């Protein structure tokens, strides 16, 4: 944080998101193209807040059936057994298996919900023009962006199991509808992270500093 430094936007310049070339925006038009790499330019990602909200809300909606519906149907000689994520956690919870249970709990329940909450917090704080904890919020954003890809662990495990455990007619594993919602949550949160412009966090802080100056 260096309050003396000027952002490209404050100087009326646009930074190319692909090649980082600074250029003046085309006269009269808000969106131009990078003179070097022809990337579309804008001061900030267009409609970032709105898009991010849309994705976050969609993810939050999908999160409900992802946890209520079973993610996997195990058919054995004993009969079909459908388990939701939470049932899996309970099932795995045993004196020796609790670390695994904890991993599932963290990766499949806490992280997706945490991501949605974190994104919602970032959006609200940006919309309210909050200048506080900017550094923390950026760190949070980075963390959410980093974790995003790892949230697919559950989906991967499920798909691997489904493809590997096909011992017809003894045993077979099939994905259940919950899995699709779970994958949707992960994808939607990643899209939300992608559409969120982290620079917005600083914009309010900068404008406040300018005002104070």
């Amino acid at each position, binding site marked *: 944080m260096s309050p003396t430094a000027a952002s490209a936007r404050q100087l009326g310049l646009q930074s190319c998101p692909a090649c980082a070339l600074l250029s003046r925006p085309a006269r009269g038009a808000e969106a131009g193209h990078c003179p070097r790499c022809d990337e579309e330019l804008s001061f900030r990602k267009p409609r970032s807040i709105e898009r991010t909200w*849309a994705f976050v*809300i969609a*993810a939050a*909606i*999908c999160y409900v059936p992802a946890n209520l519906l079973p993610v996997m149907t195990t058919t054995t000689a004993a009969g*079909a057994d459908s388990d939701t994520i939470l049932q899996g956690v309970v099932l795995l919870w045993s004196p020796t298996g609790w670390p695994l249970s904890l991993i599932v709990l963290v990766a499949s329940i806490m992280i997706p919900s945490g991501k949605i909450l974190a994104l919602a917090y970032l959006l609200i704080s940006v919309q309210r023009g909050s200048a506080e904890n900017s550094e923390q919020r950026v760190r949070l954003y980075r963390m959410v962006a980093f974790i995003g890809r790892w949230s697919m662990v559950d989906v991967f495990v499920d798909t691997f199991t489904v493809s590997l455990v096909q011992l017809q007619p003894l045993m077979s594993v099939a994905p259940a509808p919950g899995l699709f919602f779970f994958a949707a949550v992960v994808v*939607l949160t990643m899209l939300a992270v992608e559409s969120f412009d982290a620079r917005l966090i600083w914009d309010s802080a900068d404008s406040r500093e300018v005002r104070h100056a």
Partner: protein
Amino acid sequence: MPDSDTPLPPIPASRAVPKKRTRLSLVWVIPILAAAVGAWVAVTKILSEGPTITIVFQSAEGLEAGKTEIHYNGVSVGTLKTIRLSEDHQRVVTTAQMAPKTENFLLDDTSFWVVRPRISGANISGLGTLISGSYIGMEIGHAAKSRRDFVGLETPPVVSGDAAGRFFVLKTPTLGSLDTGTPLFFRHLQVGEVTAYALDADGKALTVKVFVKAPFDQYVTPNTRFWNASGVDLSLTANGLSVQTQSMLSILIGGVAFETSATDPVLPAAEADTVFTLFDDRTKAFQLAAMDPQEFVLNFKGSVRGLTAGAPVELRGIPVGEVIAVRAQLDVKNFEFSAPVTIRLDAPRLGVQVKDMDPKADFATQRRLVIDSLIAHGARAQLQSGNLLTGALFVSFDFYPDAPPATVDWSQTPPQLPTIPSDLAAIEARAVAIMKKLDEVPYKQIGDDLRTTLAGLDKTMASLRGTLGNTDKLIGNTDKVIINADKLVAPDSVLGDQLATTLQEVTRAARGLRVLADYLERHPEALIRGKTEEGKQ
């Protein structure tokens, strides 16, 4: 196009109003879509849920909320949702979520039961539940009324309600090896099974419910006999050893067989739930119905070892009844120990026919007459050994015309029939008497006497030997005498010659004597007058 030369009034510049972006971004389609899909899933989920029912069980053993399924014909039609104890803690109340469109299954007489692995003699069922855990079986009823709260059955119904056939009721004093699922045989063909049994309210008999599959149920007529075909029926007869079984299955787990006697009239098929008697075995099943059997007492003096209740009573080898009880009694007055044996005679049932009876007389009178005449003609009861190996006895009536006369005292209940000791007992008694006499023989004295006699005998023998020597000499002398005699009578001996001449003389003398006699006969006067002339001629 306006003219540029014309001076224009000052024209206000348009107000630049920043364009409001009220139009929603296309990105909002995504959350709307997500909400729509979520709502659709929720709706289908709600729609896919059928009615919720409650089933009350005695025990929740093997049941698991959320896991246990309700199966009908192997198809899952519902899942158990909750299990809790009833208010009084006596029963288990379960709620189950049924599949959609199962409303028409849930009728008033629909039944539910827990399927656990059951290994009974006849069948091993529910093996799948060993791995999968128990499930709830279901049988759809036929009632018109629907129902949502059910009481679960403790044992699964053996016969599916849809199976064609008929139920019959059997009465039996003991269950034996019967159980639900015990097979029912008709001519060694398995045609049904035992579906249930219950003890009668008075506790004296059992009611066994059996199911006979169609089309075999038509062979059950009101005069059909059912008998317990459990195990192996070994019988050793004069024809050899005969083994009677229904099937390997019945050997292992028992069975019930039924048959209609070929001699019985052909009747239409019996109504469902007709009550039959379950006989112990085939022979008993086909015995004629008891015709007012009467009890009698036989008082045996000898040992009744080997005589047990159920032993046959035979009249010259024809069974006429059986032994009911064997007791013992002691007459204190003259200290007589005896064994009164109660028997039940049912001769007409067992094939003894009585000829030339007054048809008008009632049965009891007839029987009294028959028995009186039997006894009068020397019929006596005797214990006989039926089996040499086991020593089992039976009561045999036979005719002993030289037996002491006896009559039946009909005032007693039960009346007493005369007996005679068994052959074996008689032989025994005789042997004992002989032994007693033998015991009385004074062996010692006889021995002593014998010894002295023998000593005397020795002396006698010695003198006898001397005598024998003398005898030898005597015999030698006799020989000489005989030889001399021989010599005397030899043809060339002097004695012989003389003897011959003497004999000739005697012959002559005799002739002369005859002549004299003849002359005297003719001339008796010659004795006085002497010989006449003509007599001399």
